[in-house]
């Protein structure tokens, strides 16, 4: 689930003191100097040795330096520029068959050793209420290795003014296109993560993510109406070259109703479309509720995938570890054991993959030192696997972890988080226009809107950004007040067509929340344009007093 609290980046004088959750500030130019590897190895060894000496049967040390910059604009004004850094060490141990975790921002051998001893003491205390000892799938140490997000233009080297100018230019394009108000944000994340464990791994990773969401609002004061429209470009795991728009990375939506983006984006063009979209929504026809064939663009479908496929196949939820907050799952072990549970129609194939280039979740190793990989979750419509960490693999009879462990900070304990989960493209050649030509009564939906799903991931309701009515194979005009309701299993079994690989692209969730205390992670979800037949659509227009 996405949590709104992490979006309160807020700008302006009133919010200037409210530096958000991501840590302590540092000058941007200082962020380019990574901490020396021999120093990190020595620190990690201090923690591993202290934990082992204190009686731990296993220990991992994560040294994290999290470097971020956020820029917020409102109309043509830059409201805030915030640079943050967070640096520290988290130590996880197993002692007496139980986990213990402690963290410190005292980045010295003594500080890390102290945290390791504290983690062992916590593990011993936890063991008293533990019903059975932890079982960890084996991991072979990989020695000293490094990995970095592939990129050609490091966001940290781009002047703040250039970035602010880019956001202001985008807002101007939106205003020129008919918006009354524009807001734009640029989120830039760098995670320098060092992992070491008693298995013999010393893994250094340098991870980068970017997102530039833009929102247009159009107001009709005379009729007391307003509508918003968001930009379509996805958050990505790549460098600032993402904003160097290339014609080859543009995709034409069905009927030419929008321009969409793959490996680079044109922020001004995207914002202009948002401005136009917001204005268009003020006068769009209100939808007639009923059953429709839905044609869902990847810019919209990624969030439905995230909520209805990504979360229910998290093994910790299936086992009940999120029961108090994020919930459990309908995709229970007995359903998986039958090897016949029809999660979706035969054409539905979901793949988990933490190695997809450009994706938000792409890394080489997870946060317990497991090499990342690709595996099937739904094959030909049948539930065939889950997402697991080292302590869960034995539950599903696997000899190794899926590499799904993640912590959002050095001071957060790592736990099971979703990898990139994507819907495979259709096997037959099919374009979005050809798909629509086949629809008598339908709605084409683009962009992420409101989203809500129950705690076992059955019943959901989703809205989008742009809706277009399809009649007898043609897009006939914009619609408003659309949301669709379904049950996860019914919905995926209603999947009647998937466009081919030429149309496949990723959307992404930048602030996905889970756990107590809550942590955020970022994942991408790919798909091609996909059709679902006979889905219940409601009209969301309401009058209040």
């Amino acid at each position, binding site marked *: 689930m996405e949590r709104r609290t992490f979006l309160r980046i807020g700008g*302006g*004088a*009133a*919010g*200037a*003191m409210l530096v958000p959750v991501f840590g*302590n*500030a*540092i*000058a941007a130019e200082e962020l380019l100097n990574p901490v020396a590897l021999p120093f990190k190895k020595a620190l990690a060894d201090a923690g591993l040795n202290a934990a082992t000496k204190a009686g731990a049967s296993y220990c991992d040390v994560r040294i994290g330096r999290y470097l971020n910059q956020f820029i917020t604009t*409102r109309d043509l*004004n*830059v*409201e*805030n*520029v*915030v*640079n*943050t850094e967070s640096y520290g060490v988290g130590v996880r141990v197993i002692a007496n068959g139980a986990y213990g975790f402690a*963290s410190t921002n005292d980045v010295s051998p003594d500080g890390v050793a102290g945290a390791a001893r504290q983690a062992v003491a*916590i593990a011993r*205390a*936890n063991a008293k*209420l*533990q*019903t059975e000892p932890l079982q960890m799938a084996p991991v072979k140490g990989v020695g000293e290795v490094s990995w970095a997000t592939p990129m050609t233009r490091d966001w940290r080297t781009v*002047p*703040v003014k250039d970035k*602010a100018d880019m956001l202001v230019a985008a807002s101007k394009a939106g205003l020129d296109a008919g918006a009354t*108000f524009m807001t734009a944000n640029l989120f830039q994340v760098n995670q320098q993560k060092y992992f070491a464990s008693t298995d013999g791994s010393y893994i250094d990773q340098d991870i980068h993510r970017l997102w530039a969401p833009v929102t247009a609002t159009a*107001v*009709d004061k005379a009729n*007391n109406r*307003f509508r*918003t429209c968001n930009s379509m470009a996805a958050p990505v795991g790549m460098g600032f070259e993402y904003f160097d728009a290339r014609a080859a990375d543009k995709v034409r939506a069905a009927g030419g109703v929008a321009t969409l983006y793959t490996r680079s984006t044109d922020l001004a063009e995207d914002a202009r479309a948002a401005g136009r979209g917001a204005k268009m929504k003020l006068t769009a026809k209100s939808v007639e509720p009923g059953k429709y064939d839905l044609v869902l663009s990847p810019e919209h479908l990624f969030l439905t995938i995230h909520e209805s496929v990504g979360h229910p196949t998290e093994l910790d939820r299936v086992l*009940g*570890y999120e*029961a*108090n*907050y994020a919930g*459990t799952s309908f995709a229970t072990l007995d359903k998986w054991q039958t090897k016949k549970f029809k999660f979706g129609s035969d054409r539905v194939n979901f793949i988990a993959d933490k190695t997809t280039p450009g994706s938000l979740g792409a890394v080489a190793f997870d946060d317990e030192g497991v090499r990342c990989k690709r595996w099937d979750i739904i094959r030909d419509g049948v539930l065939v696997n889950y997402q697991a960490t080292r302590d869960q693999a034995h539950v599903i009879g696997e000899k190794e972890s899926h590499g799904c462990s993640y912590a959002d900070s050095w*001071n957060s*304990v790592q736990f099971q988080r979703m990898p990139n989960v994507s819907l495979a493209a259709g096997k037959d050649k099919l374009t979005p226009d050809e798909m629509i030509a086949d629809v008598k009564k339908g709605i084409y939906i683009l962009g992420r809107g*409101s*989203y*809500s799903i*129950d*705690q*076992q991931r059955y*019943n959901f*309701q989703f*809205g989008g950004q742009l809706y277009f009515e399809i009649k007898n194979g043609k897009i006939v005009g914009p619609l408003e*007040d659309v949301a669709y*309701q379904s*049950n996860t299993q019914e919905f995926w079994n209603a999947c009647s067509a998937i466009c081919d690989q030429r149309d496949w692209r990723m959307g992404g969730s930048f602030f996905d929340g889970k756990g107590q*205390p809550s942590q955020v992670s970022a994942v991408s979800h790919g798909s091609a344009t996909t059709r679902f037949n006979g889905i219940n659509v409601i009209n969301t*227009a*309401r009058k*209040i*007093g």
Partner: protein
Amino acid sequence: MKQMNHDEAKRICDRVLGFSRADECRVSIAGSRKGNIRYAQNSVSTAGLTENTQLTVSVAFGKRQGTTSINEFDDKSLERAVRRAEEIARLAPENPQFMPAIGKQAFKPSNTFTAATAAIDPEYRAEVASHSILAGRKNKLVTAGFFVDTTGFQAIANSNGLFGFQEFTDLDFTVTARTEDGRGSGWVTRSAGDVRKFDAREASEVAIEKALRSVDARALEPGRYTVILEPAATSELIGRMFGSFDARRADEGRSFLSKKGGGNRLGEKLFDEQVNIWADPWDKDVPVLPWDAGSMMARERTDVVRKGKIVSLDYSQYWAQKQGVKPTARHGNMIMSGGSKSLEELVASTKKGVIVTRTWYIREVDPQSLLLTGLTRDGTFYVENGKIKHPIKNFRFNESPVSMLNNVEEMGRPQIIGGDEVQYSMLIPPMKLRDFNFTSLSDAV
């Protein structure tokens, strides 16, 4: 870093202000120690203690502003933070809507600190967990829960002579109890500033009883029903509405409080006459800091809704100046008047209705009407002739808090609601409401 006292915080703020060469400087220091214990499957899964103190400095040259923060407090680090903020300010474009730092304020202390809460230790947290774990095992239930206690302080200062310092404590507890076969689930939440008013055993029993009673839920047709919403079930719905009380958004035509033709609906009656809501930093049950850290302005006791009428909106410094009115500090709590009846008494006076323990995954569908969607969860029951007849399957709803507060039949005794799903400390009653709009059924337990 240990909890700072008043004098230590003042000394550090003065050092930072002294280092600044900018036209103005604002400082805030926030420190906290958070202890937690998390459990699931009747077993502790994680337990931890997080301590952090962060200083944020914001400087301005004219209308150019820069902000940085650090967690080191020696002179060299403090000066470095100020210089970095100054560097960012020089790089930043001018913000025409920048507002200068406010002058000295009189902050009347509120009672936000309790020594007994600050003294909570790992043994106490383990004992909290053990109440539901052991009772769960005894009742053949599977419990999962989370307890977190916070002891912290906040200091604010600026170059116009403003200074404030105050300590605070609080705790939040949630438990879910589920039957082993997954057919029943119950939940409870408790929040308090003073641990002496918190009873983990009592809370756990509520979740356990709901789990046992919720087995074999029957399906009720979706539609409009009279509902009895427990305070936790309404907190997020109402909290989201108060997030939309911003005067600027209303005046600009992008709020449910916008008026046709322009302007806002301040002074209009939008809710049932029984609805009275106010903010009060000195409330004995939900005290909050007497300032808003963002603006550094002093909070005041403020009526928000009186007898169903909108009596105040939130004015930022910029918008207040533009409109020629007094700016307002952001509220820290929301208090809603209720009645004297218990939840059981509300049930006893109900002919037909639905009791909702908890709502889940609430999202805004339409900001124009504040239409929200979400689901019921962990204890939904059907009431007939004053008695709980049987558990029912969970519903999805599509409803606006504006409509809800127009359909009030009766209210019970207010209860404290906190935690990370609501943006205010809240004191709100259980409410019996007409015509609540359930739009579909969920099979989730």
